[in-house]
């Protein structure tokens, strides 16, 4: 195989993978702290895209302002979701919270269909992100460079919050034992609310990057990226934030290489992603970087 071809496919893979990783960070963070697989994560991402879309189109905000507003609104949405849907089942068995998450996911999708309509919309990509650089025959779209940078930045921020702030310490406490944390006088609901805000903000950032790379937004757009981010999170060891990013990269590169090397099998790329999930769950359920969790 030609080297340029291979390198270009690696660039394509990293570009896709860093998007998966970016979305997976919020997914895995929420899981790591409250042990809830937030199935609505992809749909929260979708809402973030629509907020940014309307910010630019209806309120003619400059793109950066619109992105900031979208991220803030999505964070608020995450907190509302927690208050409305997850707080009431906080002390119920974990399966109840999981089913609630599926419910929230359907609610957001159908709300999107009613409010935004089923017709897809085109997302405006700022010029800064639509440039393409050519280096030695290899094509680097600007987003391919920006996405990993943003992913690293968000990773840094999230790790900082969790390991270097008081709120973060409380989050880590909750992940070990919610009841004892409450006994220590920590306002558990507030901390979890903040967790959702941070996770949803990360989802919105991921969604906006996704929408700029694939500028089609529709109310069901979050489903597949949500699933892929879930696979990435499990691959990296669910609950482990650095692992989620690595899992995302791995998944992206694997998908692209499958299509590149075995074009006949290109139709099975989702099957490969989910096959990978099954294999990981069978042989290494803690993922690449995960540690064994007390059940």
């Amino acid at each position: 195989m030609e080297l340029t071809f291979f390198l270009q496919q690696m660039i394509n893979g990293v570009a896709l993978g860093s998007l998966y990783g970016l979305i997976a960070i919020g997914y895995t963070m929420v899981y790591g702290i409250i042990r809830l697989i937030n199935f609505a994560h992809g749909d929260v991402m979708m809402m973030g895209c629509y907020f940014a879309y309307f910010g630019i189109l209806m309120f003619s905000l400059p793109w950066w302002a619109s992105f900031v507003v979208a991220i803030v609104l999505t964070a608020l949405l995450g907190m509302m979701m927690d208050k409305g849907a997850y707080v009431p089942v906080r002390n119920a068995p974990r399966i109840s919270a999981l089913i609630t998450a599926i419910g929230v996911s359907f609610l957001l999708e159908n709300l999107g269909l009613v409010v935004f309509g089923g017709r897809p919309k085109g997302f405006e990509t700022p010029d800064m992100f639509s440039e393409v650089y050519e280096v030695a025959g290899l094509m680097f779209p600007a987003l391919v460079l920006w996405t990993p940078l943003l992913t690293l930045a968000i990773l840094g921020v999230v790790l900082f919050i969790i390991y270097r702030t008081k709120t973060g310490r409380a989050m880590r406490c909750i992940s070990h034992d919610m009841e004892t944390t409450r006994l220590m006088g920590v306002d558990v609901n507030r901390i979890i609310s903040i967790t959702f805000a941070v996770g949803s903000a990360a989802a919105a950032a991921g969604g906006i990057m996704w929408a700029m790379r694939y500028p089609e937004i529709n109310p069901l757009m979050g489903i597949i990226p949500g699933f892929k981010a879930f696979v990435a999170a499990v691959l990296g060891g669910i609950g482990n934030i650095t692992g989620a990013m690595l899992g995302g990269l791995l998944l992206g590169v694997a998908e692209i290489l499958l299509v590149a090397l075995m074009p006949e099998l290109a139709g099975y790329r989702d099957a490969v992603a989910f096959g990978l999930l099954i294999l990981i769950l069978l042989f290494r359920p803690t993922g690449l970087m995960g540690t064994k969790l007390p059940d």
Partner: protein
Amino acid sequence: MKMRHLVVALLVLGLAVSMPAPAFSQAKSDTIKIGAFLPMTGGVAAYGQGSWQGIQVARDMKPTILGKKVELVLADDKSDKIEAANAVTRLVEKEKVVAIIGSSISGNTMAGGPIAEKAGVPIISPTATNPLVTQGKKYIFRVCFIDPFQGEMAAKYAYETLKKRKAALIIDKAQDYCVGLADFFEKSFTKLGGQIVAKTYCQTGDKDFTAQLSAIKAKNPDVLYMPNYYTEVALAMKQAKDLGLNLPVLSGDGAQDKALIDIGKQYVEGLMLTGHFEKAAANTDLAKKFIPLYEKKFGKVGTFDVMGADAYFVLADAIERAKSTDGAKIRAALASTKNFKGISGTMTIGEDGNAIKSLVIVQVRGGDFKYVATVEPAGAKPEPKKAAPKKK
């Protein structure tokens, strides 16, 4: 004890609801119920949304058939084959419609078709172009041309007008439409003397085509044929430019929706496609009446809007000629539709359920679909001269 009461109550309620239902629909015979199953949500929602608007305007233009008021019943097939089958079952069994319009894409129409076929309820599809949709079916019809015709014309256009010799393909393996159309293109293109240098595959719902496009670029083709739906075409064309792959792209009727331009923006400039309709070429009386009415209500008219309306008009015409709402009689009338002057052109529907009609070649220029040429169906007139008149 309580439980038993509840069960009894439910049973009684169930009986109460189910018993009079058929009686009601019999009594209300002053209306004609026409069903529609269309993708209102999901991957190809733009087709369903457009066709549904077209059908509504067409109904407003012709609100009564056989002196009875037309009642439209819509079922969303969610761009999904299983949901399409469910939608047809609902329309046939619960709504008891006399005929059905739908669906927009071949795969979904093929999923819903057998159910209506068994029940003897005619289906007329606005835009399902795959030949298998009507093959071996008595009750399935369409108001559009079929893919062997559009695949051949696309190949001819690429080979004769654009003078391209090396084509690449991206095929969506999950869509009968894409697989079929790519196949017909390939056959015609190689028969003309061209060569298919790269054949790549994708799956409905894919957003990333960089792997396929990089592989295509390595093979150095001079034209790309991508008979996919609008989202895939728009996203792939953007990614092609990002990868420095600059070559003419041809597509089929599925790309001709304004969502293509909304999503693809400057990246879809220059795309050429074989389509059902373009406003500049519309010259029938029905088109002159329909287009202003439609545009007053919904804005600029598109292909799928018009095709939905044509399906309604052809069906209404058939029911009137059948002088009955009996499925078999409507079917016979549909199969003898001759020179019907629809909005998208003149069509004749044969026993096989397929419409014989012309197609238009359309190009995206200045952020809009622009009419290039009309191609008459084989047998009507010699096409090569017609296929390539306007190239400058």
